[in-house]
């Protein structure tokens, strides 16, 4: 993708510009004083921003994190069980373990003496088709779910924006309370209400 000079400038300053582009860039800086000046300004401002010193937390975060540490083996076993159960349910639902569909077709090869898992290709094809249909249906519902998720996300952003605006309005109103309280009209209103 094409980069602007301002974007390339930062790649150059951070040393991430590929060597072949670096030499071209430096040659351009020699030719174009404007570019050279922008580069020094960016370098200067960044040096100024780096004056913000690192902060130290008031408590030992590493020790606290290590104390909470990895989850216990029992927790791992519980999670493995849960994952196994979900996988098994999904497999059953997808029809992998469902019995072969009864249909008129060529007989199973060697039906009398062959082990039951050896199936005729036609039966297998039917099963594969059935699984494929379910996968397609699943994909479709996932896509529909994603679309709904996006719609909900957009609606939630709109609600957030409205909350922000309402909050701002509330803050402004709060600021006005002392002004209103001090006006003669307000005092008159209160006195009239008291008399009534």
């Amino acid at each position: 993708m094409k980069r602007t000079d301002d974007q390339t400038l930062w790649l150059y300053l951070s040393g991430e510009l590929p060597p072949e582009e670096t030499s071209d860039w430096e040659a351009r800086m020699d030719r174009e004083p404007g570019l050279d000046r922008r580069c020094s300004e960016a370098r200067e401002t960044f040096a100024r921003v780096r004056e913000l010193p690192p902060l130290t937390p008031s408590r030992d975060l590493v020790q606290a994190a290590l104390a909470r540490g990895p989850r216990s083996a029992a927790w791992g076993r519980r999670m493995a069980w849960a994952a196994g159960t979900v996988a098994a349910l999904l497999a059953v639902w997808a029809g992998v373990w469902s019995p072969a569909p009864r249909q008129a077709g060529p007989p199973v090869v060697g039906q009398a003496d062959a082990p039951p898992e050896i199936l005729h290709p036609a039966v297998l094809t039917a099963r594969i088709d059935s699984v494929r249909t379910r996968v397609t249906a699943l994909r479709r519902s996932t896509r529909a779910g994603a679309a709904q998720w996006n719609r909900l996300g957009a609606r939630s952003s709109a609600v957030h924006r409205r909350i922000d605006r309402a909050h701002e309005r509330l803050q402004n109103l709060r600021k006005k309370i002392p002004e209103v309280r001090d006006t003669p009209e307000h005092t008159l209103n209160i006195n009239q209400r008291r008399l009534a």
Partner: protein
Amino acid sequence: MSSDAEWMARWRNGDEVAQERLLREYESALFSYLARMLGSVHDAEDVAQETMVQVVRKLPGYREEGKFKGWLFRIAHRKALRVIRRRRIKPTESLDDPSRPVAVPADDSSGNPRVNAHGSERRQRLYAAMETLPQHEKEVVLLRIHGELSFEEIARVTGCPLNTALGRMHNATRRLRRLLAANGDEGTPP
């Protein structure tokens, strides 16, 4: 193999010293980034700790060798955004509210008499200017100065294209330059 990758390998083999060393290495950078991003020391400590706990729990399954720092900041960044989003939904109201953000000092040395007043004032001006930046620009600058991440890594952490991260950095520095110059900051002519 980079140093981080070596420590990660030792960590996976059950070396507790490696765990602590690797987390200690980035503790201050992570905390500084979060504190300035969230504008609250308490929130930053909580998010940094949660990030480290997640790293401790997930490291055995993590396979991206040598990218520990980027991974750590990616987790922290996501958690920080969640805190910011939560604050928008439920803004803190009362001064007595314990969850109210505690202001982040411009530096650690505010109580140190050896720090000269001029330097401190300079940092305060810089901190105030940083606070005016839009969030997406501020996060790029903070990831660069505290995390010392490359722009490639910053793009991955923030989930934006590389050129967008570079553009945000450029806009942020231009804005800061203008603000600092307007506030009479020497060394930053407009």
